[in-house]
């Protein structure tokens, strides 16, 4: 598994050129609020606006970028929460699929722990959110830990990527 990951990593790094790397790393938290932001990026990187736009589109198509846009503070609109379940191994696939079937669920991961299924759900308000969790509990017969965010200590400036 590790060796496989390393190979993929090398493939990716070699596919990414100067422009791609800088577009991925340098503009995670400071997209200019001017009429032509991509022209400013182009100026900084010594290329054309059209090239910047096309490269961003390509990076998005290839899945390296989920979007060029905003990260919103949690619970600004509607209500969201992290939730956890301790699912027997042989039921995990089924329960994860059932959880995924809710449009309210946007992240869903298996993690190494007794609580092995972790997901994030977002709904219009807390009542609707708890209803989703309750339904998941009833359908699976497994308790759901409700772990809403109480305080955010993170200053989000993006993530420094290293290419070596």
């Amino acid at each position, binding site marked *: 598994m590790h060796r496989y*990951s*390393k190979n993929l*990593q090398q493939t990716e*790094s070699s596919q990414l050129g100067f422009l791609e790397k800088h*577009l*991925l790393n340098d*503009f995670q938290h*400071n*997209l200019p*609020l001017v*009429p*032509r*932001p*991509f022209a400013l990026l182009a100026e900084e990187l010594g290329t054309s*606006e059209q090239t910047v*736009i096309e490269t961003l589109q390509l990076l998005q198509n*290839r*899945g*390296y970028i*989920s*979007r*060029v*846009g*905003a*990260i919103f*503070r949690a*619970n*600004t*609109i*509607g209500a969201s929460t*992290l939730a956890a379940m301790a699912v027997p191994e042989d039921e995990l696939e089924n329960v*994860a699929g059932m959880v995924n079937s809710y*449009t309210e669920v*946007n*992240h*869903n*991961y298996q*993690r190494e*722990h007794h*609580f092995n299924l*972790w997901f*994030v759900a977002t709904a*219009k*308000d807390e009542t609707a959110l708890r209803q989703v969790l309750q339904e998941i509990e009833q359908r699976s017969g497994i308790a759901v*830990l409700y*772990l*809403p*965010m*109480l305080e*955010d*200590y*993170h*200053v*989000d*400036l*993006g*993530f*420094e*990527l*290293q290419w070596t």
Partner: protein
Amino acid sequence: MDMKVTASTSAEQLPAVLDAVDTALIAEIQTGLPLTTHPYAEVGRRLGLDEEEVIARLQRLLKEGVIKRLGVVVRHHELGYRANGMVVWDIPDSEVSELGLCIGRFEFVTLCYRRPRRLPDWRYNLFTMIHGRDRDEVLANVDFLIDRCGLQTVAHEILFSQRRFKQRGAIYHKSQLQKETGN
């Protein structure tokens, strides 16, 4: 430091500062800005706003911390950061804010939230997400945090991700957004 202050507002204390246009704007851009020469003008065109107003509102939402950042949102896994550890800490309630702020300022930390304990099943009250290219890098980052923030006596566990069943941005529906405005 401004960012820090606005970013650490708890959910209960959030002021209702969003008007109907703000929420429509948030709904419009939640899946990303259009990749065109005039993205803000294009967003405005879809909403019936002019470019200046879109820019001014985004500036305000950033200043108020409603938008934490505006820019390129990368997918860590696809870029070779295949290890992702959710590190959970059991910190005395009186110290959690101070230690949370210490942990939350490091660049390799991508989330740092206080959440409720659920005793007896769940004792941890601080949740941090740490990405690394492999497990060793995540473990080294955790050691670094322990050292820099003085967490030697704090119980913690690292929950590495295994399978990713789903990952996308939250989707807020316009219909539900409109119901919440005007308060």
